[in-house]
């Protein structure tokens, strides 16, 4: 059990009155879902499984209903993120006014890309859609506070003051160390054409182990051709599948002989 998990019951008790105040504002309890998730995220830094579970119980919903809703919204993070969430606008009005250079400068300065977190857990970086401040391009948000008319020099100063802890916007709550990426997003895979956008997360049917690889032949080819290390589960599956291949080919052979 992590420290965060241990502390969760106390946090829940502390936030319950606030949750009740939110709930009574609406004719139907379910409407309180987004405001309550915002509240938990403010305290934990992200929407933890425990928080979603607690919200589900308070609103008489299933966990699946809460997670399905939370996963729709880009400002609700389902994994821990950095203390400073840097969200740079990639909208059209910014991008024709130098946002591409600004984004490149950020990536270079931080050593991370879109939807990634620095190893020290201080910065998370995201390129976001139009932030409705096109008259002051290029713009960005730091923990949802606007920063306008960005220049490389201003970025240097900003990052330095964040590192030294003197930046005007306070850091976000971070009670669990973030991983390198926080978003469950396969955008880059889609861009490379490796995954169908229609079912994000589902491999193409004929990929190794995909739904079109029922007999496991593609998987076997993969094992033979590539020197890859597999997890136990995968090699187990390869063994099971190889038996199936033998059975199927025997069956086919017997059909052919008739």
């Amino acid at each position: 059990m992590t420290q965060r998990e241990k502390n969760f019951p106390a946090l829940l008790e502390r936030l319950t009155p606030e949750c009740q105040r939110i709930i009574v504002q609406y004719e139907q309890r379910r409407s309180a879902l987004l405001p309550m998730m915002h509240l938990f995220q403010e305290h934990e830094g992200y929407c933890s499984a425990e928080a979603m579970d607690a919200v589900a119980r308070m609103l008489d919903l299933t966990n699946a209903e809460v997670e399905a809703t939370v996963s729709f919204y880009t400002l609700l993070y389902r994994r821990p993120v950095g203390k400073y969430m840097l969200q740079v606008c990639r909208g059209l009005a910014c991008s024709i006014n130098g946002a591409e250079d600004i984004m490149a400068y950020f990536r270079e300065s931080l050593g991370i890309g879109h939807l990634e977190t620095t190893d020290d857990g201080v910065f998370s970086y995201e390129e976001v859609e139009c932030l409705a401040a096109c008259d002051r391009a290029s713009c960005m948000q730091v923990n949802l506070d606007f920063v306008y008319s960005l220049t490389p020099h201003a970025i240097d100063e900003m990052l330095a003051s964040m590192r030294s802890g003197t930046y005007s916007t306070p850091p976000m709550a971070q009670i669990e160390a973030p991983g390198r990426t926080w978003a469950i997003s396969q955008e880059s895979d889609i861009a490379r054409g490796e995954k169908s956008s229609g079912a994000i997360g589902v491999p193409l049917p004929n990929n190794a182990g995909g739904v079109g690889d029922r007999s496991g032949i593609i998987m076997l080819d993969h094992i033979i051709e590539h020197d890859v290390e597999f997890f136990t589960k995968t090699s187990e599956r390869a063994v099971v599948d190889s038996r199936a291949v033998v059975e199927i080919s025997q069956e086919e052979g017997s059909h052919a002989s008739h």
Partner: protein
Amino acid sequence: MPVTKVLTAGIGEVDLRGIDAYRQRGGYKQWERAVREMQPVDVLNLAEKSALRGRGGAGFPTGRKWSFLPKDKHPRYLVCNCDEAEPGTFKDHMLLEETPHQVIEGMLIGAYAIASHHAFIYIRGEFRRGYEIFCAALEEAKRAGYVGKNIFGSGFDLELTVHRGAGAYICGEETALLNSLEGRRGEPRLKPPFPAVEGLYGMPTVVNNVETLAYLVPILERGAQWFAAVGTERSKGYKIVSVSGHVRNPGNYEIALGTTIRELIEIAGGLRPERKLMAVQPGGGSSACVFEEQLDLPYDYESLAKAGSMVGSGAMVVFDDTTDFVKAAYNLARFFAHESCGQCTPCREGGDWIARVLNRLVNYRGVPGDIQMLSRVSSGITGLNLCPLGDSIEPFLKSVMVRFPDQFESRILAPQAQPA
């Protein structure tokens, strides 16, 4: 025609966030007058006479929208749409942060007009600062007795709830907004039933834009005639236009509808020195471009519609000769692909394909047939979706592909350079 400051009066000159500053300029007088002296139907008639049309994008006549509510179904709700996210639009953001009391007063008057006792405002998740400013203003209004029970001793009760979104462009579509307000995924609903009949919690609901509701205050103060006196035949009154892109002074400018696009560009300081105008996108990311020879078009609903574009949310992006229109098209296509909720196949799959092909062109790796594919796929998306998001992909792309074919064709690899 010059800039006329109605809703934007005082912004940038004085701090209008506090209730005293707002009251000094006559704030909440119209709300008091509505409750004390007018019947809801009087307010509705006034809105109808003023010919005010929705300022969020669709441009639907506000009074007509209100009149669709069934008479015998209660409770009914007013929802103020402050999920402003159309690329290039930043007017509601300004109204929310600079004059929150004006937004509150407009909402109160709108709710009174439809005899609603519970109004909501849905604020875009990114506007956290605006949300805080609005909540503080609402507290002041509650303490002053403008919101709550028995307002001005009239027996009229009205609650106002502030709801924060969490990052989803699609929630600006009214039925997606209602789903989000109900704590669901922001997926648009099938229409009919329209929200006026079955909206929030299945009850009659009106969803109006921030700017639309805010205009009710000056309309009550100065009369429907005053508002309807300016504008063109079917586009009356004033509108805040967010001008951005390649102009010297980007910003929000409030103008009488019918001001020409050329005048609007001049109001925003004109182009930068030595630059030539290439295109103007007059109504947000979903609208088709207009070009140099169309600059004398009046900025109003019917003229822009006739020219194949639209006023939309009033976001005008100006492009000069430094613009790479393939990149611009990719930028918007990627935006719509990213923001598609995924319910309708043409939008979900088509948007992604278009973004992918355009990405190829941006990187000079287009293959022969790509341009035809873009036309075919984009026209194949239009008209086949539950909401207008999918239909928003085609207009800009088509208009710049027709106008600047060379920019697109030069991105196609010669056959010998094709990868095997």
